[in-house]
């Protein structure tokens, strides 16, 4: 289940093991048989840490989803609530506990807050008069969850990071980010160098340094695994998430949305695969759910490719598999046949993996070849190259007139604003009026949020510095090679994500070469050093790569991850990257998180 976590440059399974150990210890604290009541949101992230079997070993006999009213019957000694610290959940739990009391059942209640306990919630339980019913209130610190061999995410357990970083709120998530980084350092050694860009990055670095001072004298005696940490604020690069991702994994996320490493797909393409003769007999109506990670060999190979290169890769794979199956004809001796048979399971897994991805690629292809997709991409590329960003865009106008989904409109308008360093007041007012008239006046709350984050803003100075940034950092590459890329710009078929360019330049030749541009981007940039205990200084072998942890505060897209993996694999790159983030995002989920009452949008 988790082997793929340990294949990478840094063994992230250590982190997972630590989390599992803590979970076991908690379960053992509540002696006897147990039932777990789950905050449904948590089952996804927990699935990345543990299976049901682990819980079962520790006497978990039943599991329920948290719901109002009475708890289901279960003959167990303990009832444990696994919940996020949210007030509305406390009210449901109180309801559960109160109705249980009436039954005078002898079950013990326990509470496990994930990822942190909250005094606010405990106070709420107290007000509801149920706090005393809990034998045990504890917390399960789950900051950084390993998603893949090189990817960690906090997956927004701490309320809403996007909101927190950019809209008014309590910044608690930054504190937890710092905490999470301290945990990482406890497991993988002190990170000697910290770089950063942006206000939030500065905050996190300060907190880390402070926490380190507070625990001075308790240095972990571990040889550092990471050579450096780069903290990047999402608002240093507002542009990248707005662009449509064009890698295979990025497109899957754009079109179907990936949550906790799973994607739900329309079942039609998959049902016919089972047995051709019976196709159509009973078509499943439930979406097909698939897990996506590097444990699947084929997926690991194609996930980060530009979608235009996926077809070729799949057909190459198909030939290899066909050839492997053909070998049975040449197998003559018993030994040869035996060997062929022993390989069958692996071959079959490869075959079904190929079948699945061929189907997914077909689904995606239907979208990418549509006129609507093409038109949208055309406009995005115009904006990113600086064409007519100061005028009313007729495509956006048309989309509004057709009542296309509001999120799509907002994504484009924000992109235009970002690429133009703000829109002229008249233009901004025009877009705002069109949006409010077509979608409803209440959306002025959403527009207000977007303005607060800087995604949408009036042009304050006459100077638009985006072209300078674009040219200096080479954000647009004319001849991006989609099949055999030689530059990160392949992930957006021409646009090189700003965030990753900053990472690339930092590694070589260093940020000093781009001081001017760094000043144009929001927030301070900085470098800090952390003292290592004597004797833990790494002696680098000739030609050994550096390892850098890049932490995206406020979210990262799959295309950006692909670009970093590309850099890791470059022959003369010299640096390998591990990626961490507060949340995996795409333009749609990102804008949605900034909307007022996004649930009102279908």
């Amino acid at each position, binding site marked *: 289940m988790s082997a793929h976590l340990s294949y990478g440059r840094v*063994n992230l399974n250590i982190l997972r093991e630590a989390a*599992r*150990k*803590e979970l076991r*210890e908690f379960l053992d604290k509540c002696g006897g048989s147990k039932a777990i009541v789950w905050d449904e949101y948590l089952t996804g992230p927990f699935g990345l840490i543990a299976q*049901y079997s682990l819980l079962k070993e520790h006497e978990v006999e039943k*599991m329920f989803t948290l719901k109002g009213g009475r708890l*289901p*019957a279960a003959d167990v000694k303990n009832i444990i609530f696994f919940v996020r610290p949210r007030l509305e959940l406390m009210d449901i739990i109180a309801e559960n506990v109160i109705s249980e*009391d009436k039954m*005078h*059942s002898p079950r013990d209640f326990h509470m496990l807050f994930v990822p942190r306990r909250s005094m*606010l919630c405990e106070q709420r339980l107290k007000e509801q008069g149920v706090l*005393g*019913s*809990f034998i045990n*209130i*504890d917390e399960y*610190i789950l900051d950084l969850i390993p998603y893949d061999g090189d990817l960690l995410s906090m997956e927004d357990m701490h309320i809403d990071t996007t909101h927190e970083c950019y809209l008014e*709120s*309590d*910044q608690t998530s930054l504190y937890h980010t710092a905490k999470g980084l*301290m*945990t990482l350092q*406890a*497991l993988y050694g002190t990170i000697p160098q910290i770089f950063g860009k942006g206000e939030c990055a500065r905050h996190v670095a300060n907190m880390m340094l402070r926490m380190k001072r507070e625990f001075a004298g*308790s240095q*972990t*005696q571990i*040889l550092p*695994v990471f050579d450096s940490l780069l903290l990047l604020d999402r608002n240093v690069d507002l542009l990248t998430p707005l662009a449509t991702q*064009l890698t295979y994994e990025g497109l899957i996320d754009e079109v179907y949305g990936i949550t906790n490493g*799973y994607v739900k797909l329309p079942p039609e393409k998959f049902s016919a*695969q089972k047995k051709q003769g019976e196709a159509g007999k009973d078509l*499943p109506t439930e979406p*097909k*759910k698939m897990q996506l990670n590097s444990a699947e060999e084929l997926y690991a190979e194609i996930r980060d490719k530009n979608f*235009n290169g*996926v*077809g070729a890769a799949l*057909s190459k794979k198909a*030939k290899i598999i066909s050839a492997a199956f053909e070998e049975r004809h040449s197998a003559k001796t018993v030994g040869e046949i035996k060997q062929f048979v022993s390989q069958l399971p692996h071959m079959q*897994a490869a075959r079904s993996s190929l*079948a699945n991805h*061929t189907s997914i690629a077909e689904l995606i292809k239907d979208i*990418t*070849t549509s006129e609507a997709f*093409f*038109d949208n991409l*055309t406009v995005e590329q115009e904006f990113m190259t600086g064409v007519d960003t100061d005028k009313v865009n*007729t495509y956006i106008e048309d989309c509004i*007139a057709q009542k296309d989904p509001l999120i799509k409109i907002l994504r484009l308008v924000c992109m235009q604003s970002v690429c133009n360093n703000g829109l002229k007041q008249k233009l901004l007012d025009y877009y705002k009026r069109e949006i409010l*008239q077509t979608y409803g*006046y209440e959306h*002025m*709350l959403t527009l*207000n949020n977007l303005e607060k984050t800087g995604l949408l803003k009036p042009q304050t100075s006459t100077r638009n510095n985006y072209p300078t940034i674009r040219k200096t950092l080479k954000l647009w590459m*004319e*001849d991006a090679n989609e099949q055999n890329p030689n530059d990160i710009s392949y992930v957006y*078929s021409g646009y090189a994500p700003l965030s990753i360019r900053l990472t690339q330049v930092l590694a070589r030749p260093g940020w000093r070469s781009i001081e001017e541009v760094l000043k144009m981007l929001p927030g301070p940039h900085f470098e800090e050093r952390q003292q290592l205990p004597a004797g833990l200084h790494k002696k680098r072998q000739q030609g050994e790569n550096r390892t850098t942890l890049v932490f995206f505060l406020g979210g990262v897209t799959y295309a950006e991850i692909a670009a970093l993996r590309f850099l890791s694999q470059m022959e003369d790159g010299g640096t390998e990257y591990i990626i961490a983030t507060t949340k995996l995002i795409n333009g749609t989920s990102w804008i949605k998180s900034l909307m007022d009452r996004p649930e009102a949008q279908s």
Partner: protein
Amino acid sequence: MMRGKPDEDDYWNSSKFKAFTFDDEDDDFTRLKESKRAVNSIRSLVEEEDEEDDVEKVSWSGEPVGSISWSVKETESSIRSTGEVRDQSFPKIHTAPSLPKNSSGYSLSSLFKGKAKTGSFQSFSESFGDPSIRNYAPELRKPKSEYKDYVSDWTPEETVKRMQQGKVYSLEKFRSLQDKLLLLDEAVNAHDGNVITAVLIYLKKSLSKEILFRELITREIALRHYIHYLKEIGEQKLLVELFKSMDRTEDMALMQYRDHLNVRDENKRRDFLKNCLSFPFSPDDATHVQDHYTLLERQIIIEANDKQVESSGQADIFKKYPRKASILNMPIITTLYYSCFYHYGESDGTFSSPANIRKTFRISDKQFLLTCLGARAKLKAWFDVDALFTTKNWLGYTKKRSPIGFHRIVDILQKNNAPVQVLQDYVNLVEDVEQKISLAQKYKCHDVIINTYRDLKDRQQLIVYRGKVEKGSSEYRKIEEILSNSQLRWKN
């Protein structure tokens, strides 16, 4: 293509821009087919052994069998099927523990305590894979903290630290304002939102709001936490007061405006919005709120009226096209569409007339035209459609004009199933010849194509097109006629 830039294709193929295209030699699509074929051919020879491999088992919905979310579903469905059988034993006297148990500290802290055993971490990354490694996993949880020193005179710093560690603490002893503020500042310094909020809850209880507000002005982080806290617990009134005292009146206004979404009854909602009009919005937002109010006010009037007319069966339009939904709370453009659909031709004076709505809500020419066109085309009122574009100049000649390219008009008409006779009038108005021809081909406006080729004197194209139409049809005959016209001077 569709978007009206005449030489768009050239533009894309020329230089700078690269669109995301698929028409390479080595077509991707054929490749997908290829791999699909391969998959299918393989299947036939391994069919019997089906999924008997050591790949993890996956249920149809994709969850690996044995995953947490899978088993939650499993237990739940089994419970549902057995019915909610509950233990109906006699009530027993229940003795719930009345004191909250204070357990556990911040388990992570143990990581940062200088325990000697951390020495073994060194070998971590290398030795992983060894089954015994589990024992190396760090001690993430700390033994229960010492409770002994219950009350004493901890400094603010010590208190905050204890709070962070989940130990017993007491805030009551911070009595003077100065002490309380020291405590708050210390909590803010620690950056732990949980602790900051706990301190703020105490200050909220023990200080008058005027004093608390005053002190928060100079403490931005604490202020943010406080706002967040008030939002969480829904103390709207206090929040409004806070914003007021901070002179953040626009935020206050928006926040109050937001509340209209919770008012279900339309009359109450209208009154609520009316009340909002006096709030200190930014000038722009003030206009929007005013429009919002005016809109709902009108919708209520229109809705009441139309409902009555519809049920009395007086107007044909409602009989022919019964209303599908109420117009209440719809956006203004939707309302305009409704008005163009049911109230077309009413005099400017009525609230429900398109002209009045257009004027009141300052709807742009383009939006008005598109909305109106959509509604009239839906009703197949082609005469109205025609009138929308017809202008007369001072000599009395009529001409068709449009603020939007005619190619878009054609698209909209086509989507509303306009007949070819109507469509071709508008296709003819498209200025760009190539675009005109491609539209005409798309929508089978033979006359337009034939006439255009004739005007271009393009004999070859006309011959080609003759091959595409049905032999003996009127189009066919028309082409024949033109081709045999000796007066024409063909260019080819």
